């Protein structure tokens, strides 16, 4: 089985879909000749031509707006927004147009746009290159929201997103593009080469949207998380010696509730973790959903580990980022509670 990092897996997903379906087009800032600032579209323009891999002006609202029109005219656009932090100029087009077009026209018009965007911290990016805005999008009906945590899922989920007739916002945790990250910045970097999820088939396959995965099986505590923090949670389980089950949500909306609640009913304890700020965050939705179905199984209050409710600071990244230390502390607090 070929080894791929997340960038190669994402590139491969594009390649597979562009080969299979001539209506798939890619547009975004620097995605064409250069192949994207993170190289996710490298080589695609050479292979498929400049009419299918289109360098766009620096106007996120224009990229998304034009992609919507292309989708209405039978294309299947994959739009890259260079950083999730830059997505806001396109927010109105996503929320008011892309998400609602099928609804307001009773299915007569729809636009199957996939919006890919790198998110999250841990790369010394400061407040304009580190944000995790997924919770803003999960709150919008009519779009699907996805965040993979490894190369295998990234390719399979991206192919499923491109094939979906619904619009998908596809978040890519850039800290783990090149290798998994356990949340300890002092350790040397690790590559995907030795990780089982770094084994990625060359050809077509999908990971269905709307399915969570048990990333680590355990009996004592459920950690519900996604993106980079899946790896932090697994490392924290080992560090604390707690027999934790780690659930990788993968698709935030629509949510696979059953995989989450089955686990929490089994363990009786639940910790929710995301990089995004805590207040009004997606973790609150997870907590509310889990407690509704699992209340009588819970042996401790559900707790959250999340980004502090501040903008993402540059110099204090490792005090801000919910890394190994804070994940371990979160686990201990849920385990200690009676």
């Amino acid at each position, binding site marked *: 089985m070929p080894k791929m990092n997340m960038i190669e897996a994402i590139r491969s997903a594009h390649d597979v879909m562009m080969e299979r379906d001539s209506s798939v*087009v890619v547009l975004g800032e620097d995605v064409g000749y250069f192949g994207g600032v993170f190289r996710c579209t490298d080589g695609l323009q050479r292979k498929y031509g400049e*009419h*299918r891999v*289109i360098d*766009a*002006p620096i*106007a996120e*609202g*224009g990229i*998304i*707006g*034009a*992609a*919507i*029109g*292309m*989708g*209405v*005219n*039978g*294309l299947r*656009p994959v739009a890259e927004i260079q950083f999730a932090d830059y997505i806001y*100029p396109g927010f*109105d*087009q996503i929320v*008011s*147009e892309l998400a609602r*077009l*099928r*609804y*307001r*026209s*009773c*299915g*007569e*018009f*729809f636009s199957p746009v996939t919006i890919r965007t790198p998110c999250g911290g841990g790369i010394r990016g400061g407040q304009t290159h580190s944000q995790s805005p997924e919770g803003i999008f999960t709150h919008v*009906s*009519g779009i*699907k929201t996805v965040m993979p945590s490894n190369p295998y899922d990234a390719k399979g989920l991206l192919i499923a997103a491109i094939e*979906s*007739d*619904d619009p998908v916002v596809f978040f890519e945790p850039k800290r783990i593009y090149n290798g998994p990250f356990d949340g300890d910045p002092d350790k040397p970097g690790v590559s995907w080469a030795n990780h089982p999820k770094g084994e990625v088939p060359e050809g077509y396959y999908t990971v269905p949207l*709307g399915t969570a995965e048990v990333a680590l099986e355990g009996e004592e505590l459920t950690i519900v998380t996604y993106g980079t923090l899946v790896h932090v949670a697994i490392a924290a389980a080992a560090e604390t010696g707690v027999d934790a089950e780690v659930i990788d949500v993968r698709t935030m909306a*629509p*949510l696979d*509730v059953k995989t989450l609640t089955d686990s929490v009913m089994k363990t009786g304890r639940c910790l929710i973790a995301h990089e995004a700020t805590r207040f009004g965050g997606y973790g609150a939705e997870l907590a509310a959903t889990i407690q509704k179905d699992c209340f009588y199984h819970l042996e401790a209050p559900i707790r959250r580990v999340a980004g502090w409710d501040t903008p993402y600071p540059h110099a204090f990244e490792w005090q801000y980022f919910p890394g190994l230390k804070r994940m371990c502390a979160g686990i201990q607090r849920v385990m200690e509670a009676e």
Partner: protein
Amino acid sequence: MIEKSRLKIPQPYARPGDEPDFSYLELSPAGEIDKPQIGARTRDLEYLANGLVRVLDDDHEAQGPWNPDLDPEKLQVALRWMLLNRAFDDRMWQIQRQGRISFYMQARGEEAISIAQGMALRSGDMCFPSYRNQGLYMYRGMTLVDMMCQCLSNTRDMCQGRQLPIMYHSKEGNVFSISGNLATQYPHAVGWAMASALKGEDHIAASWLGDGSTAEADFYHALTFAAVYQAPVILNVVNNQWAISTFQGTAGGERRPFAARGLGLGIPGLRVDGNDFLAIYAATLWAADHARRGHGPTLIEHVTYRGGAHSTSDDPSKYRPKDEWDAFPLGDPVERLKGHLIKIGAWSEKKHEKLWDECVEEVTAAWKEAQQYGTMTEGPFLDPVTMFEDVYAEMPKNLESQRRRLLEILGEE
């Protein structure tokens, strides 16, 4: 005197109680503006953005190189559509005032734009309209009954009760869904046109927005993308002088015409008499030909006047002179086309009255039928659980469960 910076707050030339004043409006005599060859360089076309393309003169004669030389029969058809549009608007306005629909927007004074452009475009060309383009839907085959049912949110509403009145859509007629948010449809038209060119097809796109909406970022996004990729698209600015209560100067219309907005990007701009059916038709044909032959986008500014209130929620007597439309130098598009047809011996006052009566009757008959499918107070009513459909291609579990819950609640009542 010491020169220093100062803040200008644009003010309209006349407010309630003042004499209407259109001295700011720069006009060109009918027939005066040259018609360029397709493919001319934008830098050689700047005169088109600053002048005013007009065909019909004050004596109702067609003048100059932009005269599209249409058969009188075709003009009679056009007049009929414009009258039907007006009769429909009149009736729907009354119906809203009687409390029988929640909201309405009329195209009064702007009917020539939708009808002339609808007729000049091909049926395969895609329209991305604004909320005063109901004439486009009519011309492209939507029945009055269907439009009324949409406004009533009744059992035959194409939007199944999900949209405010007038937010129509017609896949069959190639007219996009109206959003209600302003200017968002502009980049869609450009993307659609890019896809058309990319697929090697001959279809073009067209979109419309008002003078006020040119201030939105989407307007500039669309112009930029259209210019960069030379998308086959016609971008129309309907300058009806008023954006609710703010005059066109508040959107930046005082320094240069809206038609000139694209010049910096190399997009030709045509400033057209928006109440002159023949001028609009000819300008649209020129822009469509320009796009279809690979020369990219055109921006057309239609200089017109919003003859009625912004919507049924608006009262223009609070912010503009009551008789302002009467003083508008470009008149009424219906009267001008009628005057031209009479002038060329193809129409009469009597025929006109008869045609108006026919249109009113058609609207009355449609209203009678539309009410059979339900009104705001009388059934049949739409099933509210349909609100959960079409959010996604397939209904996800959370919506399924909410749908079941609503059914339970409705059953409990």
